[in-house]
C-alpha cells in the first residue's frame, strides 16, 4: 500500500474509487427517492425500470437535439413523469392491479425507448459541466471525493434532504403519509386520495427519469438499448432496504454505488475473476441486503406504509 497519487490498495486507487462512488450512486439515489414518495403515498410502482429507461432516452434526445444537457435533464424528468402518469391513470382511475401494471410499464418502457433510441446510437451527448467549488475542490483527498462533481450529484442529495423535510415537517407531507397509511380514513377526512397519489407518482416518475437521464448523459455517457440494466429494480430494493426512510435510502444508494464501483475497479484491475461473475455482485448484494433488512423487520414494527399496493375505490 503506497501513498503516491492516491491511496492504492490491491491495485485500486481508493480516492478515485470514492470519487466514482458518488457518480455511480446518483441515478439510483434519484430513482429511489422518487419511489419513496410514491410508496409513502401508498402506491407500489414497479415500473421504475421503465420510467428510468424512458428518462434515459428522453433526456438523451433532449440534450442532443438542443445541445444543452440542462434541457436534457428536464426532458428526461418529463419523460419519466409522463410514464408515471400513465401508470397512475391505470391504477388510480381504472383501478388496475399495481404489480401487473408496474411490470407492463417496464416492458413498455424498454420497448418504446429502444424504438426512439434507434437514431441516437453512437452519438455523444453534450458534456455536463462540473461545478466549480473553488478552494474546496483543491482539498487533498476530500476535494476529489466530494467537491469535483456535476450539479446533479449535489441536487440528488439536496432532494433527499427536501424529501426528508417534506415528510417530517410539512403539512402536505403529513397528508401524503396519511393517504399511504389508511386511504379510507384520509378520504373520510376529506383528503383527495387519488389526486395526492397522482402527484406522488408524477414526482416519483420525474425523479426516476432524471436518474435515467443522468445515466445516459453523465454516467455512461451514451445511449444503448436496455442501458438501465436493472437499476430501476435496484432502486425499488433500496426503498425497502431503507425501511421507507429518506436518510436510509441515501445510505443504501451509496452502499450500493460503492459495490458497483468496486466490482468495476476489480474488473479493470485485471484480477483472475471472470468479468461476468463480478458483474453479478450488485444484484447478489441487493438480494443479501433485502434479506437482512426483511429479517430484521420481521419481528418489529412493519416499516412499509400500511396501504401500500392496495386499490382505493371510494364507494361513496
Amino acid at each position, binding site marked *: 500500500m503506497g501513498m503516491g497519487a492516491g491511496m492504492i490498495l490491491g491495485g485500486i486507487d481508493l480516492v478515485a474509487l470514492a470519487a466514482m462512488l458518488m457518480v455511480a450512486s446518483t441515478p439510483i439515489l434519484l430513482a429511489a427517492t422518487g419511489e419513496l414518495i410514491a410508496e409513502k403515498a401508498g402506491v407500489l410502482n414497479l415500473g421504475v425500470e421503465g420510467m428510468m429507461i424512458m428518462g434515459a432516452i428522453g433526456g438523451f434526445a433532449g440534450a442532443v437535439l438542443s445541445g444543452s444537457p440542462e434541457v436534457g435533464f428536464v426532458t428526461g424528468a418529463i419523460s419519466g413523469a409522463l410514464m408515471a402518469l400513465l401508470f397512475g391513470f391505470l391504477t388510480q382511475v381504472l383501478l388496475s392491479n399495481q404489480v401487473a401494471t408496474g*411490470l407492463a410499464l417496464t416492458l413498455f418502457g424498454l420497448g418504446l425507448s429502444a424504438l426512439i433510441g434507434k437514431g441516437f446510437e453512437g452519438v455523444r451527448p453534450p458534456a455536463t459541466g462540473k461545478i466549480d467549488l473553488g478552494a474546496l475542490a483543491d482539498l487533498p483527498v476530500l476535494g476529489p471525493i466530494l467537491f469535483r462533481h456535476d450539479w446533479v450529484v449535489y441536487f440528488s442529495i439536496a432532494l433527499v434532504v427536501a424529501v426528508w423535510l417534506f415528510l417530517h415537517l410539512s403539512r402536505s407531507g403529513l397528508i401524503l403519509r396519511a393517504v399511504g397509511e389508511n386511504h379510507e380514513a384520509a378520504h373520510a377526512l376529506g383528503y383527495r386520495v387519488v389526486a395526492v397519489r397522482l402527484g406522488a407518482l408524477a414526482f416519483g416518475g420525474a425523479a426516476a427519469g432524471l436518474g435515467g437521464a443522468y445515466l445516459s448523459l453523465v454516467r455512461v455517457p451514451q445511449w444503448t438499448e436496455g442501458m438501465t440494466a436493472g437499476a430501476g429494480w435496484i432502486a425499488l430494493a433500496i426503498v425497502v432496504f431503507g425501511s421507507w426512510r429518506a436518510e436510509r435510502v441515501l445510505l443504501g444508494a451509496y452502499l450500493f454505488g460503492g459495490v458497483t464501483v468496486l466490482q468495476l475497479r476489480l474488473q479493470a484491475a485485471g484480477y483472475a475473476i471472470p468479468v461476468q461473475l463480478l458483474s453479478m455482485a450488485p444484484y447478489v448484494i441487493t438480494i443479501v441486503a433485502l*434479506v437482512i433488512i426483511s429479517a430484521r423487520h420481521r419481528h418489529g414494527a412493519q416499516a412499509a406504509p400500511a396501504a401500500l399496493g392496495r386499490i382505493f375505490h371510494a364507494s*361513496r
Partner: protein
Amino acid sequence: MITLVARPAPSRFWAWATPVLAVLATMIAGGVLFAILGKDPVEAIRVIFWDPLFGANAGYFRGQLFIKAGPLILIAAGLAVGFRAGIWNIGAEGQYIVGALCGASVALAAYPAESVLVFPAMVLAGALGGWAWGMIPALLKTRFGASEILVSLMLVYVAQNLLAWAAFGPLKNPQGFGFPGSRNLQQYPSAHNADLVAGSGIHWGVMAGFAALIGTYVLMSRHIAGFRIQIAGDAPKAARFAGVAPARLVAFCLGLSGALAGLAGMFEVAGPSGQITDSFGAGYGFTAIIVAFLGRLNPIGILLAGLLMALTYIGGDMAQLMLQLPAAAIQVFQGMLLFFLLGLDLLTNYTVKWGWARA
C-alpha cells in the same frame, strides 16, 4: 360524471370479452404507432397477423408458431398458478436460463455417448435447475420475509451473467475455433429435441406445454391444493382459517413455476436454439407474464394467448424484414397489449354508471 360500482362478483362475460377488446384496441393503437413510424398501418397489421397464418408461406410459419408458443405456454402455465395465489414470480426468465444451463450441462457432459438415457436426464436436470432457482426467492420469502418480486427479478440478472460466463467459459465448445457458445446439441442425436413430426414445430417442449395446461387445469379445478391457492389469492385471511400454510404455498408456487420455466429453457436449448450462447435468453420469461394475464390465468386462455404472442413474434420478424419495422416496435406492441388488458379489466370488476351515484 362517471361513477364505478363494484360488481358483487366478477362478470364472466367481460372476463372473456376484455382480452378480445384489448387485442383490438392494441391493433388500433399499434396501427397509429406504425403510421407514426411512416409505415402503412393496414399493411403492417396484415403482415404481422394475417400473412403468417394465411399468406404465401403459411405452412412454414405455422410450424414456427408452435416453436415460439411452446415455451411461452409452458412458462405461463406455471406463473398463472402463482399469480392466482398472489405470489409474484417475475423471474421466470432467470429460471428459464438456469434450466437451459443445467440441461445443456448434462448433455455436454455425456457427449459424445449415444444413449436413450441422455434426454430424460436432461429433462430432469432442466426441471431441477429451474426449480432450484425458483426456490431461492421462495426460501428467502418464507424464512426472512424478503419480497419474492424483487429477489426473483434480481436473480434474472444473476442468471444472465451466469449464462454469459458459461458461454465464454466452462460450456464453450472446445472445437469452436475460439468462438463463444457451446456445442450445438442439434448435432448430438441423443440430446436433440427434434420436431416430433418433421416441420410441424411440435417438439417435446410444446407437448410439455400442453401437458402443463392440462395438469394445472386439473390442479386448480379438481384438487384441494388448487382450492387453497384460489382462496389464498382471493381471501388471505380466510385461507389462514382454512388451514392453508402460507410458507408451503409460496414454496409450491415458486417451485412449480420455476421447474416449468426451467423445462422450457431446457427444451429450447436442446431444440430450436441448439446451443448455449450469451444471447440465449430471449425474453420468453417476461413475455410469458403477458401471456398469463392475457389468458386470464386460465389454461385455455393461456393456450390462445401463447399462440397470439407467438404470432406477434413471427409477424414482427416478417414486418422487420419486409417493412423495415424496428424490432422494438413489437415490444412496444406487447407492452400496450398488457396496458389495454389491465385497463379494460375495470369492466370485469365494476359497472360503469353515468350520472351521479346516490350516496
